[in-house]
């Protein structure tokens, strides 16, 4: 679960240069198996408890960097009150965290001392635990540890907060056709910069709630009664929480159109399928996931086949029929040239568009490695952090103003629906993880048999959980909860912590006549919910497993 282009290669290089690597994960994944000196198995959703106990040790043994906290952060005192128990009467001790996380108290203590006394140390909090019922607490707590140990802005350290790559060639800085204003949103609240997820969804629907919104409309508190949906570049039914609910919602729409290349699980519900071009049939700019340092140009290899048109041509043709004048005054190549030449990031880099197009790649030579927030650490007065206070906000007043108990202003471990304390746990005693697979990109490439045979779709289950259920390796099993049931083969393995099962996301939803998902799409089991801060809850689901019929 390491995010970033070829991060794996860089981690290997770090290890070969002597870095000690510790992997903390419910699974002994391939990254851990390749580079980790130590694997610390942990129960899903409890990393924040473990990190809070680490903070406790670091505070108790005075291992934190007071000068760094004084110069670059605000609110450490309030976090300390939570950690020491002065705030809520519960000290966040290693024993407290051990009971929650399944990690021994002695291991937590050792990890805390190692992390605090090794300089530099990079705490790489990635995105699996962030996609959970309290995801933001995890990233904020990691960020706090990075600040406590003074690792922010240092070469070999890390700033925490989710690791989104270097700011060169970043996919979020891609040029795009100006979207214009959505008339529906004009009278809505100004949400620019707000952290208030409640405010954000007054006029928009949270991505993980679109099918709930279709089913419930205004009566359910959503901004409108949705009658039609036009979907392109996605497979939401498969890739947002609760696929069975999504299927029900798509059936209730008056009209559903998709732009598609393939008969995806979602496209099966469409009234109209517009055949869209593949990447080989159009030219485009692409960027590395999630960032460079390079830019790529994908040249059209063949003319569009059959009736296929690009998404943009489909939209432009429709705009014309709807009487929108001059919707698309430029050709594909004119747009792409503008995107390169007018983007403040690429303009100084790519001075010859035609050469870039011809060669298909532009590499950026970095004078030195990019270190996040180095400017802030070197000169905080002139380069404040991009926060209201200009400092790293261990306590956030903006979050405090939300006054939302599930979104506290300092990072905290909180109980959530479908954690192990939920009464549902009695009936569904296994926690489900839905990690990204190595052999496809989400649900893309799923139909490529070369890739499928590399990693047959199976549910990981520890022998401790498999044996009492009479499940052997390769047996057909059912994984189910109140939302749905999937049929899948078992992979009985010592590589997962007992009490947890794991199904790679992205397999195509394929319900049979009894409603059993024979494709074993992970989201048949996940919840269409979002966390206090707005994270899609994909890794907080309780399930039961039994032998399949």
């Amino acid at each position: 679960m390491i995010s970033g282009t070829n991060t794996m290669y860089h981690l290997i290089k770090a290890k070969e240069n002597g870095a000690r690597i510790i992997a903390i994960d419910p699974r002994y994944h391939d990254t851990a198996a390749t580079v980790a000196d130590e694997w610390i198995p942990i129960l899903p959703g409890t990393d924040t408890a473990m990190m809070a106990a680490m903070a406790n040790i670091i505070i108790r043994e005075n291992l934190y960097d007071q000068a760094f906290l004084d110069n670059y952060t605000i609110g450490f005192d309030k976090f300390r009150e939570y950690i020491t128990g002065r705030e809520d009467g519960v000290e966040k001790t290693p024993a407290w965290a051990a009971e929650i996380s399944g990690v021994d108290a002695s291991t937590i203590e050792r990890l805390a001392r190692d992390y605090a006394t090794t300089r530099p140390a990079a705490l790489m909090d990635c995105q699996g635990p962030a996609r959970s019922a309290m995801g933001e607490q995890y990233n904020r707590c990691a960020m706090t540890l990075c600040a406590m140990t003074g690792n922010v802005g240092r070469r070999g350290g890390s700033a925490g907060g989710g690791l989104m790559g270097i700011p060169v060639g970043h996919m979020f800085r891609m040029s795009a056709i100006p979207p214009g204003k959505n008339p529906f949103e004009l009278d809505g609240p100004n949400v620019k910069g707000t952290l208030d997820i409640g405010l954000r969804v007054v006029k928009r629907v949270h991505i993980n709630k679109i099918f709930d919104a279709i089913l419930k409309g205004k009566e359910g508190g959503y901004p409108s009664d949705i009658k039609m949906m036009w979907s392109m570049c996605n497979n939401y039914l498969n890739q947002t929480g609760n696929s069975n609910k999504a299927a029900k919602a798509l059936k209730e729409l008056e009209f559903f159109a998709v732009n598609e290349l393939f008969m995806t699980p979602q496209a099966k519900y469409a009234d109209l399928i517009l055949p869209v071009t593949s990447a080989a049939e159009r030219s485009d700019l692409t960027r590395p996931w999630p960032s460079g340092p390079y830019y790529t140009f994908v040249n059209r290899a063949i003319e569009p086949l059959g009736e296929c048109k690009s998404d943009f041509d489909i939209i432009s043709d429709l705009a014309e029929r709807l009487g929108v004048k001059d919707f698309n005054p430029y050709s594909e190549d004119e747009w792409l040239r503008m995107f390169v030449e007018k983007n403040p990031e690429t303009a100084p880099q790519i001075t010859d568009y035609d050469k870039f197009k011809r060669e298909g790649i532009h590499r950026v030579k970095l004078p030195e490695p990019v270190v996040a927030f180095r400017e802030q650490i070197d000169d905080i007065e002139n380069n404040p952090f991009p926060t209201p206070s200009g400092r790293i906000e261990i306590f956030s007043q903006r979050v405090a103003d939300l006054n939302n108990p599930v979104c506290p202003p300092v990072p905290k471990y909180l109980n959530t629906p479908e954690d192990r304390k939920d009464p549902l746990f009695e009936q569904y005693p296994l926690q489900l993880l839905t990690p990204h697979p190595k052999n496809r990109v989400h649900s893309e490439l799923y139909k490529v048999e070369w890739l499928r045979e590399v990693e047959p779709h199976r549910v990981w289950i520890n022998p401790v959980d498999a044996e009492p259920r009479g499940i052997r390796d390769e047996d057909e099993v059912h994984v189910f909860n109140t939302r749905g049931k999937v049929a899948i083969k078992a992979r009985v393995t010592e590589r997962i912590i007992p009490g947890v099962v794991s199904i790679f996301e992205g397999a195509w939803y394929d319900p049979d006549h009894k409603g059993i998902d024979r494709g074993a799409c992970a989201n048949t089991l996940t919840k269409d919910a979002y966390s206090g801060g707005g994270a899609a809850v994909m890794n907080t689901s309780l399930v039961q497993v039994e032998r399949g019929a």
Partner: protein
Amino acid sequence: MQVGFYFDQTRCTGCSACRVACKDWHNIPAGPENWMRVIYTEKGKFPNPSVSYMIAPCWHCLDPVCIPACPVGAITKREGDGIVLVDNQVCVGNEECDEKCLKACPYDAPQFGPEKGARMRKCNYCLDRFAEGKLPDCIESCPVRALDAGPLPELEKKYGKSRDAEGFKYSKRTKPAVVIRPKNWLDET
């Protein structure tokens, strides 16, 4: 000069890009015929499991036992570079000879498609690329640079002569053309 492979087992994450690139380059359909395979080994008990991957192409052995095993002389070893090749048109198919080459090979390198009477095919060191001075496609596809290829003495000079690893046993009889940097579990525990 005999050519061969280098495999750094400490770097391999099991992503199988080599296997897929091989099928792509040689246009082999999904199914049982895999000129490049990735052998998976899992050992140990929670919370101390051990995992390793080992690539498995044809090792273009110095003393290939598949050659004498073939009843019709379909397999040959090239002079000079030592690449072991099969003449698919001479091969009589697996039904008629009962896969004698595969039974002889300690590494399961000879491959057969799913069809009745399939004739043997296998890794040919990307002969077409080799002729152009390029590396085999599996080597270039590896995102963590765990693979290399070239004249065996050069590989030995560059990477040493270690030849045993989890998922692989060096056969003194056939002498596979490979050097390996093994994942040493003893060091890690």
